[in-house]
């Protein structure tokens, strides 16, 4: 058997692996990328939203994304939030577009560009192939080859061996590269979520007709973890997730609870939507990526725990870390030093990026997500409290002055839950995000005091 040798071996052909292979090949490195599917994007990849940062940071690539090559693509400017109480009733909704503080295009024009990965992943892999990387599909890499305890190559299921100066683990949430290289055993159950998801088929013309410029919706529930609904050219996904330790029933039970909300049923009837495909994904949702590299090995994307700690956006972080991994690998190979110490540069570099900035508050962001949208128990009081604030006044049941008092009293009844929640989860996040500016918050009570009219003494 001929042992083939490469500079860079990429295990996994998703967007992160494709980006790594593209950059490595462009730098003149002999690069191979392995994909276990017959083509990229046909296995259980999960993320379906491209954030505007991709268009800002990779404009040359993204301008080639057109409906000809990616028929599922659909972007929209609005995100809708439905608030559902414990009786599965939609008590209200908020729809918003990018606000005036958003600074650049296309972030002002759309929230996400939605794509089916079965369209997008082969498209992005083509950049790697065009750059000269070799793509080997239908090939499962089963183990790593080691010499003197260091990883020097990979082996496929047929026993074929490939030697590489650098091995990039782009193999997703259950990463053979991470586990076999000793960087990690499987994820602890508080760092990984399971996400069941329905794909619904919708006649193409109905999406724009009924959803207008809506790109996605979040169903914030008091009986299920927050569910996302993402609209594509001819269908939508409905999914929800939670950390593995959370589930007391089959995850599908909670997902179908959303499907059975009367309001949702009405929506699918209007859209003429039909369930088309059931998916289930694991998704790492870590507060900080640790153990990202060792001698001759770098982990990127989901394999490295890089999805956004708040909303789990995964494609952009995978592409950013893939690009950096390729650049660091190129330098290490050219310097003739691919040791762990030399690859520490990888951490230094990703920490400087937009992805790194997000993780500076990773712990606080992850914590608020776990305790609010992923905690139906919290949502049980949060949803009605929010709706008192948003909707309570538009009501003709009593004189408006009476209504205001009723609302205030009701909100007061939620405070025993709301105040400890704010102290435990919201304040730490604000303190972290605002840094020194946090002190400004202390002036708010003073400001309110100044603005309030002086109490008049009632003289008759």
């Amino acid at each position, binding site marked *: 058997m001929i042992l083939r040798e490469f500079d860079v071996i990429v295990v996994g052909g998703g967007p992160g692996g494709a980006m790594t292979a593209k950059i490595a090949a462009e730098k003149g490195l002999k690069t191979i990328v392995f994909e*276990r*599917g*017959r083509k990229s*994007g*046909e*296995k*259980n*990849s*999960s993320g379906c939203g491209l954030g505007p940062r991709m268009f800002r940071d990779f404009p040359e690539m993204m301008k080639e994304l057109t409906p000809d090559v990616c028929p*599922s693509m659909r972007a929209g400017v609005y995100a809708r939030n439905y608030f559902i109480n414990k009786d599965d009733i939609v008590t209200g909704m908020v729809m918003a577009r990018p606000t005036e503080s958003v600074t650049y295009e296309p972030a002002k024009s759309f929230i996400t560009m939605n794509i*089916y*990965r*079965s369209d997008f992943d082969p498209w992005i892999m083509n950049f790697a192939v065009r750059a000269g990387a070799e793509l080997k*599909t*239908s*090939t*499962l890499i*089963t183990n790593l080859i080691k010499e003197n305890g260091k990883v020097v190559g990979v082996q*496929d*299921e047929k026993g074929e061996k490939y030697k590489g100066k650098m091995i990039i683990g782009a193999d997703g*949430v*259950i990463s*053979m590269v991470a586990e076999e290289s000793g960087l990690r055993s*499987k*994820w602890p*159950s508080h760092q*990984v979520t*399971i996400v*069941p998801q*329905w*794909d619904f088929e919708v006649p193409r013309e109905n999406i724009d007709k009924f959803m207008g410029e809506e790109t996605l919706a979040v169903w914030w529930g008091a009986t299920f973890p927050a569910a996302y609904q993402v609209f*594509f050219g001819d*269908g939508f*996904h409905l999914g929800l997730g939670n950390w*593995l330790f959370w*589930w*007391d*029933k*089959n*995850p*599908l*039970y909670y997902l*179908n*609870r959303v*499907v*059975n909300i009367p309001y949702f049923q009405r929506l699918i009837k209007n859209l003429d939507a*039909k*369930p*088309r*495909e*059931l*998916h*289930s*994904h*694991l998704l790492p949702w870590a507060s900080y990526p640790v153990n990202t590299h060792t001698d001759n090995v770098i982990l990127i994307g989901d394999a490295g725990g890089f999805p956004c700690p708040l909303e789990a956006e995964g494609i952009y972080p995978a592409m950013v870390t893939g690009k950096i991994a390729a650049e660091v690998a190129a330098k290490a190979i050219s310097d003739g030093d691919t040791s762990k110490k030399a690859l520490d540069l990888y951490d230094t570099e990703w920490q400087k990026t937009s992805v790194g900035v997000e993780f500076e508050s990773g712990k606080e962001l992850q914590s608020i997500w776990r305790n609010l949208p992923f905690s139906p128990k919290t949502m049980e009081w949060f949803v009605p409290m929010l709706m008192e604030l948003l909707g309570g006044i538009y009501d003709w049941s009593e004189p408006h002055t009476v209504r205001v008092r009723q609302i205030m009293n009701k909100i007061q009844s939620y405070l025993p839950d709301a105040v400890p929640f704010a102290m435990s989860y919201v304040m730490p996040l604000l303190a972290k995000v605002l840094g020194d500016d946090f002190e400004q918050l202390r002036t708010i009570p003073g400001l309110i005091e100044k603005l309030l009219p002086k109490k008049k003494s009632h003289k008759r």
Partner: protein
Amino acid sequence: MELKAIAKAKMKEGMPEHISGTGDFIKVDHDKCVGCGRCIVICVMNLWRIRDMKASLDEDYQEKCLECGGCYQICEFNAIKFHYPAGGTGVVYKQG
């Protein structure tokens, strides 16, 4: 319709295509399994049973498994071994 019945009907409709030839890609180490049943709860496709106090997979799991690896991840006793199916086989997501 009962929620369970709806789920069942929809599951049949939404079953993704599977390519045969996966090989045996999930295995249970019965010495380690304590029969806690967490794999039963987490499996979206409901492919696990408890037989003789041990976790056991349905025989046709290779034609139904969505390859999420939830069973492997949730097992606190490391009794479930999982690797992806042979290249080019197993579940195919057309709208993934």
